[in-house]
């Protein structure tokens, strides 16, 4: 009979059948080391759950709660109401309801209650969606995408599917010449509106993302926008709103934008 730690544990916890237990005890009679191990396992019968239950755990940080709600809102719209202020909430809800009824998003007439930047932003898409995407990007650390590596082939299947659904001509930009390695493309949803997120990682530094979603608005040139401390470059081309974003300077993002369009 070969004795290992599992058998010692099973012996102490009375989980061995009678013949095995008898054989175990016979071996133990003349094995001082085994006796010592049995004593140790017996001594380890301790109130683990009670000890950890008595441990004072710090409260969940408020910002973590908020971030989780933001994350849920990007992936699934119903909890988005928890992220924004009351006025933003009803405005967003009204915008989205109207947008879905008329079949077009944004460019709705709420100019009088929109701030200047929101109004300007609406020329590039739904400002609530743009803000949500930027806030989502703000949660991406280098470690989040460091271990992610999707092949171009697999990513292209996703992009092709997106293109076929809307007759778009989206391609995955290659930023490798600028030092940004493609890591992954995925489809997210904001109130069931599809958003393609393509993530890149430089040799050093934070992740870069290009997010694309459909819009029913005319082409627009480049616009810089900042939210949650994250810079973004927005433009609209052929029914698609592009959002290039990351923890980079405006100039760095503009340079990448130019490498795409020139």
């Amino acid at each position: 009979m070969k004795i290992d730690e599992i058998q010692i544990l099973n012996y102490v916890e009375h989980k061995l059948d009678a013949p095995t237990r008898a054989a175990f005890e016979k071996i133990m009679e003349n094995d001082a080391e085994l006796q010592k191990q049995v004593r140790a396992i017996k001594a380890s019968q301790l109130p683990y759950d009670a000890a950890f239950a008595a441990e004072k755990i710090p409260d969940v940080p408020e910002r973590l709660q908020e971030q989780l709600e933001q994350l849920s809102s990007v992936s699934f719209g119903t909890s988005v109401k928890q992220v924004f202020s009351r006025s933003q909430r009803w405005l967003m809800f009204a915008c989205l309801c109207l947008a879905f009824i008329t079949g077009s998003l944004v460019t709705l007439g709420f100019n009088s209650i929109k701030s200047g930047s929101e109004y300007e932003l609406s020329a590039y898409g739904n400002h609530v969606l743009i803000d949500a995407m930027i806030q989502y990007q703000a949660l991406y650390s280098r470690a989040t995408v460091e271990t992610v590596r999707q092949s171009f082939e697999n990513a292209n299947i996703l992009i092709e599917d997106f293109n076929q659904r809307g007759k778009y001509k989206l391609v995955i930009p290659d930023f490798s010449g600028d030092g940004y390695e493609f890591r992954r493309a995925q489809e997210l949803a904001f109130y069931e509106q599809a958003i393609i997120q393509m993530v890149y990682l430089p040799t050093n530094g934070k992740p870069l993302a290009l997010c694309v979603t459909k819009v029913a608005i005319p082409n627009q040139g480049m616009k810089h926008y900042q939210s949650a401390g994250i810079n973004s470059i927005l433009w609209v081309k052929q029914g698609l709103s592009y959002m290039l974003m990351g923890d980079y300077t405006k100039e760095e993002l503009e340079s990448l934008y130019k490498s795409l369009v020139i």
Partner: protein
Amino acid sequence: MSQYVSENLSHELSHLWRFALRLTRSTSLAEDLVQKTAVRALERKHQFILGTQLRSWLFSIMHSVWKNDLRSAAIRQQSTFNLSDAENYASEICHSENLQLFDDVISNVNRLPEAQRTVMLLVCVEGYSYQETADIMDVAVGTVMSRLARARLKIGEAFLDKQHDEGSGEHIDRVSRKRYEN
């Protein structure tokens, strides 16, 4: 199915936070770990099988993220720096007649190698079965049992040494027997 994850994720936050704190022993690392777990869970929400336990699924993601983080030298270094931070909250035990015992139990579990410590947390603290723990850690049941046995052996040896040093183990024996004897 995927909506289920989004809708219920916030209900699991306190459990995720507690498990993350115990894994990382640092409030800042735990915060980061919960965030990453949530991002990954939402990205893979279509993989969640309705009818199975959301918490186990989230713990499995959290464990996988933490394992990857540990591979990073930077995180390992940060973890060392933050041990004092962890020590602060781990040493705070609610008033109990078993204060010293509880403190010793937690200290000994925290001193275990990572893989053994995680098994102890899942089996002995969270109350998962060997099979559930194996699923969460993505290892064989035998590996879980082996790690648990080794962990228990180390903890037991530490307690025996302590008893020997103090000249009496009656208090520990009394408390553990009272709670664990069948």
